[in-house]
């Protein structure tokens, strides 16, 4: 077998893109964030059979920011992410990643390779593969066909995966098939996959759904620590959670931005209370959970 391994090694050498196939070398230019701005969403419109899911939506996100996106069910948060990640084609508008990448003319894979990672509202993992493989697949590597064919896990990568496993608390389950994880565990795994991919911009849709308060807190910590180097956009309905991480909060309503500001501003905003938070604004809940958090 070692002969084969040798050939594979040789082939791997041959197919190192930067050397032999210069014309195949990634042409991808760096994300231009000179204006401190990483995501520009302007005038986005999208309708499904006459129903306007996004309605002249504008959103700007600073580089390194942690932005919370809230809004009523059906406000268009997930749809917005769908448009940013190339899953859904919008009717009109522009979406730029940095100043130089027009996301609307790229497909999902390209967008992902630019460094935009996404966690789905309904956890989606590769059910037939182990937790470990799930993470390996998400690693930040060259995702072309040939490089993938000849690539092998480097020790650094393995360490990275181990690290992530530890963070998401699935170290014990590393060889378990992802399909056999419980709902909450899948949530974690999906976050882990994001971590492994090491993206520039993270779009996270309802990360703490189905998590216990303590886990929620842990997630909050994790996301806060990610911000700065990376930009994070989080969608969540758990107000306590949002409060614990948010600097700026954007509220969507019926496909466009209803309000934007700090958590306090938002919480006292009449419109937001009316369409989203509800009269007592979950005061009591928030209070109680906060107590729990302290206790834990």
């Amino acid at each position, binding site marked *: 077998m070692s002969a084969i391994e040798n050939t594979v090694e040789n082939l791997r050498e041959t197919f190192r893109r930067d050397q032999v196939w210069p014309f195949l070398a990634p042409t991808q230019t760096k994300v231009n964030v000179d204006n401190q701005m990483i995501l520009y969403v302007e005038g986005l419109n999208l309708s499904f059979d006459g129903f306007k899911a996004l309605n002249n939506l504008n959103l700007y996100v600073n580089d390194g920011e942690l932005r919370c996106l809230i809004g*009523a*069910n059906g406000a268009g948060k997930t749809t917005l992410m769908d448009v940013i990640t190339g899953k859904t084609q919008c009717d009109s508008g522009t979406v730029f990643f940095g100043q130089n990448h027009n996301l609307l003319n790229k497909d999902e894979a390209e967008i992902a390779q630019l460094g935009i990672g996404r966690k789905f509202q309904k956890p989606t993992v590769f059910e037939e593969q182990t937790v470990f493989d799930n993470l390996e697949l998400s690693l930040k590597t060259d995702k072309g066909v040939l490089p993938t064919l000849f690539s092998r896990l480097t020790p650094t990568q393995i360490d990275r995966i181990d690290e992530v496993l530890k963070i998401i608390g699935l170290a014990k389950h590393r060889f378990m098939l992802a399909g056999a994880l419980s*709902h909450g565990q899948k949530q974690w795994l999906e976050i882990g996959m994001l971590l492994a991919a090491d993206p520039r911009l993270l779009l996270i849709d309802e990360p703490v759904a*189905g998590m216990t308060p303590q*886990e929620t807190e842990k997630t909050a910590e994790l996301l806060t620590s990610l911000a700065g180097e990376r930009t994070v956009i989080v969608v969540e309905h758990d107000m306590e959670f949002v409060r614990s991480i948010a600097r700026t909060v954007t509220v969507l309503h019926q496909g466009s931005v209803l309000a934007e500001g700090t958590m306090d501003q938002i919480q006292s905003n009449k419109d937001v209370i009316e369409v*989203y938070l509800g009269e007592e604004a*979950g005061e009591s809940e928030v209070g109680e959970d906060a107590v729990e958090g302290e206790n834990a």
Partner: protein
Amino acid sequence: MISINKVDQLYGGTQILWELDLDIVPGSITCIMGRNGVGKTTLLKAIMGLLPIKSGEITMDGQALNKQSAEKRAYSGIGYVPQGRDIFPMLTVEENLRIGLPVRSKRTTDSPKDIPEKIFELFPVLKDMLHRRGGDLSGGQQQQLAIGRALVLEPKVLILDEPNEGIQPNIVKQIGDVILKLNKEEGLTVILVEQKLGFARRVGKEFRLMEKGRVVASDKMENLDDSLIKQYLAV
């Protein structure tokens, strides 16, 4: 109402529920809590009859459910709101709701032809979305649909698996109100799996804590104290 006796359950080779015992008091709201993966969902599915159990007994009002198929249990009055909603994605909202009408007509005397107006009063969004595919709804809308759909059955027992996942705060509250209202006005027995303590405290009357496939603590909700929380819910 529902009592569960020494239930064992396995997925393939791995055992999830271990001689689990559980009693649900009629007319109460029982909150089942526990960390991720302890088997809450599994337990609920077993009650609904969607997973076969290996041994043990599940009874409702003294009648053994074990041998009953899931559809029979629906006729006996169990309504189920699954985790992850499980809306019929290609059916319209209306059709999603209509599915349960035959059961309803067996269980009630009111006109079986139509979806009860009550549902739309509880969840007005559904009325607006009546002709859209269930799968197109946003997560929160789907959750409301799932609860509404279960209520069409006019159940005696309503099983809710994390009903607030992904729901906007005011609706969370509304769902809580709905549960309380149904419980109070119609004597609906509710089994609720919930992670958010606030909600659990507000709505629940009883709690059951689970760990590793067993019920390890059960009591009135008032008695859910920090030590229990620390022991069974903290990570």
